């Protein structure tokens, strides 16, 4: 493993509600992101995966914990990110309809980061925009188009190109392909993989799609109700998922081939629903849906344990082993 580019330590993000209660969107998450890797952050709606992304990128402040980017704590109270850091950490959003201003040409949208980070004369700017378009595999004529005249996948590629404009090192990918058809997703994903190799980018890839992560991520982290359940290198993760929630998640995926069917943990039937993060269950937050629930699970919160090298799981079942 290489250098650590981003380390999240015990990150917490709480949102107060109007009625005085609190949503604990992220409640004590720790993980590392190595340079040049793709960390897949996977979970169902309300698990806090996007909150983590938005805290890293600076949309929210943290309620507690640290976000160390190259050793600097970006989440420290009162810390203001430098322009350089803003350029180095970029984000690609989920919704292709809203990531580009529908009233401005592609060129105008792509000028936004250039004007802020890399002021240059008009002709050079045009040149740079054409170069960026080429990097994501789009013809340079696209610069004069309006977002509504191109497809959703192409719009996402423009968002990627726009993010590349500031020479980033870490890109947060917030479900960049979940709104796209698979034939279009394929092109976007392949472009992202190529760019990563060429530019040594590190990706924090937020998604709910485990099948996609199987093909993209270096390591996979599973979130449930604002906490990590399991974190492991991809191959190991898919061949030996340990956490009961992870197993349930995997077994729920509708697949298309017999080979895939064989990988899914059998005999696990998904049940129940993710509880509201406003009053998360005591003890292990998953115990209400867990088929292996023990007495201890209802009262005591399990801790992250390294059961095998680089394979972490947060479950009482595996405590003894460690």
């Amino acid at each position: 493993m290489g250098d650590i580019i981003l380390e999240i330590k015990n990150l917490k993000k709480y949102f107060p509600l109007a009625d005085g209660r609190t949503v604990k969107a992220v409640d004590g998450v720790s993980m590392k992101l190595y340079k040049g890797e793709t960390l897949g952050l996977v979970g169902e709606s309300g698990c806090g995966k996007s909150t983590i992304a938005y805290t890293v990128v600076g949309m929210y402040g943290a309620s507690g914990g640290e976000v160390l980017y190259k050793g600097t704590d970006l989440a420290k109270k009162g810390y203001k990110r430098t322009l350089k850091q803003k350029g180095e950490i970029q984000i690609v959003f989920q919704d292709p309809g809203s990531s580009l201003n529908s009233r401005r040409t592609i060129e105008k949208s792509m000028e936004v980061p250039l004007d802020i980070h890399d002021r240059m004369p008009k002709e050079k700017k045009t040149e740079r925009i054409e170069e960026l378009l080429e990097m994501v595999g789009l013809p340079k004529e696209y610069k004069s188009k309006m977002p509504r005249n191109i497809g959703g996948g192409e719009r996402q590629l423009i968002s990627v190109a726009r993010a590349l404009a500031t020479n980033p090192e870490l890109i947060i990918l917030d479900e960049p392909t979940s709104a796209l058809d698979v034939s279009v997703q394929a092109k976007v994903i392949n472009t992202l993989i190529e760019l990563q190799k060429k530019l040594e980018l590190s990706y924090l890839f937020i998604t709910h799609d485990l099948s996609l992560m199987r093909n993209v991520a270096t390591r996979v982290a599973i979130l449930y109700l604002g906490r990590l359940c399991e974190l492991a290198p991809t191959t190991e993760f898919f061949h030996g998922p340990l956490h009961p929630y992870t197993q349930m998640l995997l077994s729920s995926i509708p697949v298309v081939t017999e080979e895939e069917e064989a990988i899914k943990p059998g005999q696990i039937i998904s049940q129940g629903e993710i509880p509201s993060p406003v009053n998360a269950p005591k003890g292990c937050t998953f115990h209400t849906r867990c088929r292996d629930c023990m007495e201890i699970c209802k009262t005591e919160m399990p801790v992250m344990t390294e059961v095998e090298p680089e394979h972490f799981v947060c479950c009482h079942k595996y405590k003894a082993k460690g």
Partner: protein
Amino acid sequence: MKAEQKEAMIKNWYKFSAGGVSVIGLAIVLLIILLAVFAPVIAPYPEDAGAVVKFAESSQAPSMEHIMGTDTMGRDVFSRLLISLRGSLLMGVLVLAIAVPVGFVVGVLAGYYKDTWVETVLMRIVDIFLSVPALVLALAIAAILEPNLRNSMIAITIMWWPWYARLSFGVASSLRTENYIVYAELTGAKLSHIIFKEFLPNTFDQILTKMTLDMGYVICMGATLSFVGLGEQPPMPALGNMINDGVKFLPEMWWLAIYPAVTIIIIVLGFNLLGDGVGNIFNVEGK
């Protein structure tokens, strides 16, 4: 590229003319503008737009010579009507030229800073202006200032900007969580960039539609003020004061009041129809 633009134009024209009536609106508005611009040339008696007295021709019913008749001073109603179009249009343009930018900036700021004190303060001010019928406060303001055309414009402008603030507030507060706005913030864009480069193009459709409709309503309110004597002062003609003069001679000299009244209706109608068509292009509902 060229073909694309042409295609877009054809599509827009189709949307604009879909209802049929918008084309009539466009024709009316163009006609009014032409008449206003060339009024001194077209008007048969341009000198009548002032303190002129021609006793020999006073109080004549419409005829070939005076197609809309003459008033008690013998002035040609048609000529006065043409000249008065200029003041009306000027009022519409100037009022909106000030009210729209002011309202836009206030509204967008409030919308962008929704749920903060900025929104509370700005939108409360807007609410206060909207808590009295515009006409009442405009009358009060116009009365307190010296009654003339300029001051009636000031009064109407003061009452008009809150509407644009409210419109822009609505757009900005719904767009502020759009990813392109968030992206601009995260990358370090300045406030002026966000307001004028990101929000402005997105508010433009609705503002333009409302402006087209409002041209008619501003002219209408201007006429109302001048009807009670708080606008253009006699002997200069204005749609409102011509009607007011004419009312005194109803029903015998009906032409004095009816022609200017019908003119107002046509002007407002024209801008209304045009505004509907503009709204159709952008898929914006008129008010």
